[in-house]
């Protein structure tokens, strides 16, 4: 077990290192970073001075080392647009994304898992077909379009909910639904197949032979065992929520990390973009790591593959 954890830890570190190279090169791919950061009326000698201050006159690998060693200490540089430390801005926005993501997750579990289980129990009947159609259609709609259609229906046509921004709980409903939408479709499919696998097993037949009532068979004997794959797969997919926040927050003008990334991109605020991408990647990789280790703990066969 310890061996496995160590191996995965080293893998994660290598992966993060690779991404940090890409992130570091981001600002260099777009041309001279000093020109980008300097005000338009700056003189050539000012730009040269800025270059020295920022360390841009040093060789690339030295710059990379500086970037990495500062980032590890939590210093991601200053945002060009707001003139504040990037980390501080990130920490300001993060709770909003956490709130949105949490609400989306809650929605997903409350809707997706029961739908999937009921689909499996009623396999082949109309509810199952309806669930399958729902899952397929759900996975085929672009997130931004789902958001806009909801806005059209509930904000423009019916006027029940505010179109965008953040404030009351009504503001949270549409973004959470939009963000959770794709994920709900995925989790419905997962819980259906996990439940089908379990219902096929011998101990379910045994439970039925014993004459237990059907709801006990399904909830106590079936669902409890189906939970393991459902929860781990769900946890694995938490990270896809991270991707979704960029689009959802842009559509609904939700002041979280996703909107911060998009706004910083258009403001050419590269230190801010780098910070967001690097932290998002780190979160992404470490969530994956924790899920993998937990999975190996629950199901020891994983290690030997």
């Amino acid at each position, binding site marked *: 077990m310890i061996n496995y954890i160590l191996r995965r830890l080293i*893998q*994660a570190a*290598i*992966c993060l290192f*690779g*991404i940090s190279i*890409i*992130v570091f090169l*981001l*600002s260099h*791919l*777009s041309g001279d970073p000093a020109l980008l950061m300097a005000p338009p009326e700056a003189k050539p000698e000012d730009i040269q001075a800025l270059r020295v201050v920022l360390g841009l006159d040093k060789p690339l690998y030295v710059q990379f080392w500086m970037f990495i060693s500062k980032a590890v200490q939590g210093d991601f540089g200053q945002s060009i647009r707001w003139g504040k430390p990037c980390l501080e801005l990130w920490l300001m926005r993060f709770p909003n994304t956490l709130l949105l993501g949490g609400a989306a997750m809650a929605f997903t579990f409350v809707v997706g898992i029961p739908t999937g289980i009921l689909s499996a129990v009623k396999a082949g009947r109309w509810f199952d077909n309806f669930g399958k159609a729902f899952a*397929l*259609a759900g*996975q*085929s*709609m*672009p*997130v*931004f*379009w789902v958001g*806009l*259609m909801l*806005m*059209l229906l509930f904000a*423009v*046509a019916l006027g029940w909910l505010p179109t965008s921004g953040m404030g009351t709980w009504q503001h949270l409903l549409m973004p959470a639904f939009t963000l959770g939408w794709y994920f709900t479709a995925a989790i419905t499919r997962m819980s259906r*197949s996990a439940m089908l696998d379990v219902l096929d097993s011998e101990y379910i037949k045994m439970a039925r032979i014993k004459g237990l009532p059907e709801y006990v068979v399904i909830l106590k004997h079936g669902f409890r065992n189906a939970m393991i794959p459902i929860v781990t797969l769900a946890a694995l997919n938490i*990270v896809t929520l*991270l*991707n*979704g926040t*960029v*689009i959802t927050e*842009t*559509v609904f003008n939700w002041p979280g990390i996703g909107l911060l*990334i*998009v706004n910083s*991109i*258009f403001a050419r605020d590269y230190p801010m*973009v780098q910070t*967001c*991408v690097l932290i*998002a*990647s780190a979160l*992404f*990789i470490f969530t*994956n790591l924790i899920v993998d280790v937990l999975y190996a703990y629950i199901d020891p066969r994983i290690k030997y593959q």
Partner: protein
Amino acid sequence: MLNSLSISETEETGRVSERFRRIRFRDIIRGVPWIPVTILVIFLVCGLFGSFITPHDPLKTDLRAVKKPPFFQQAGDMKYLLGTDAIGRDILSRIITGAGVSLQVGFAVVVFAGALGALVALLSAYLGGWVDTILMRITDMFLSMPYLIILIALAAVLGPSKNNVILIMAVLGWAGYARVLRSEVLRIKNADFIKLAIVARAGKARIMFQHIFPNIINTLVVLATLQLGNVIIMESSLSFLGLGVPPPEPAWGSMVADGRIIMNTAWWVSTWPGIAIMLVVLSSNLLGDWLRLRLDPKFRQL
């Protein structure tokens, strides 16, 4: 007597072989998802010959027909079936032309990513050893990235253009193929016909590309069909954010974004292109699922 017997025999065998042929043909046809295939054919025709079948010039603005609703609404006009946008461009024509963008990006990405993934899988699984270790670590790295966020950042840095979108998505999208195809190659690698090829002194490159590669094409096609829908959604997401295909050219994602500001007065501008995306993606997912069952029953659980 003898003669008639032989005739009846040939008739018999003739009928048998014909029935055989009919059954095989029906087998191929059976269960083809016709609706998705039809939608994809329409998509293909629009993408390839879009400029010949658009009722209007997709870029021409008609200031007398700004924000015209679709034909079934009261103020609508048969001239503009699906209505016009904020500067009087015909939405139907723009959707037809936009199919070309999605088609080009979708196919180019799927082909490049698939080729790269297959190459990595072949090298990694067949050569093994340190090549395998290094290539698989790189594959793992690409698989554990926050895909869309890196995609957006790279697209922003390299600047919005169709070629950049294709390049970035292909470079970020090959890892899934490599992972799945590698296990395929590992399985085939130990088959008898490969051993025979080695005995016949076929070189490594020859074994990889002529003996193993044809056996992974089925899986490759299934993966590519399933990825196509995903690529179209990602491309439209980039275009929606203004980081994909630059403005004058109509892309479905940017058309949805165009309608966002005038949603209060013109619901149709955002709605139609989104439906187009959904239909094409749904169709390619359904076709991919069907192909998977047809060609590769092993991956039913994938």
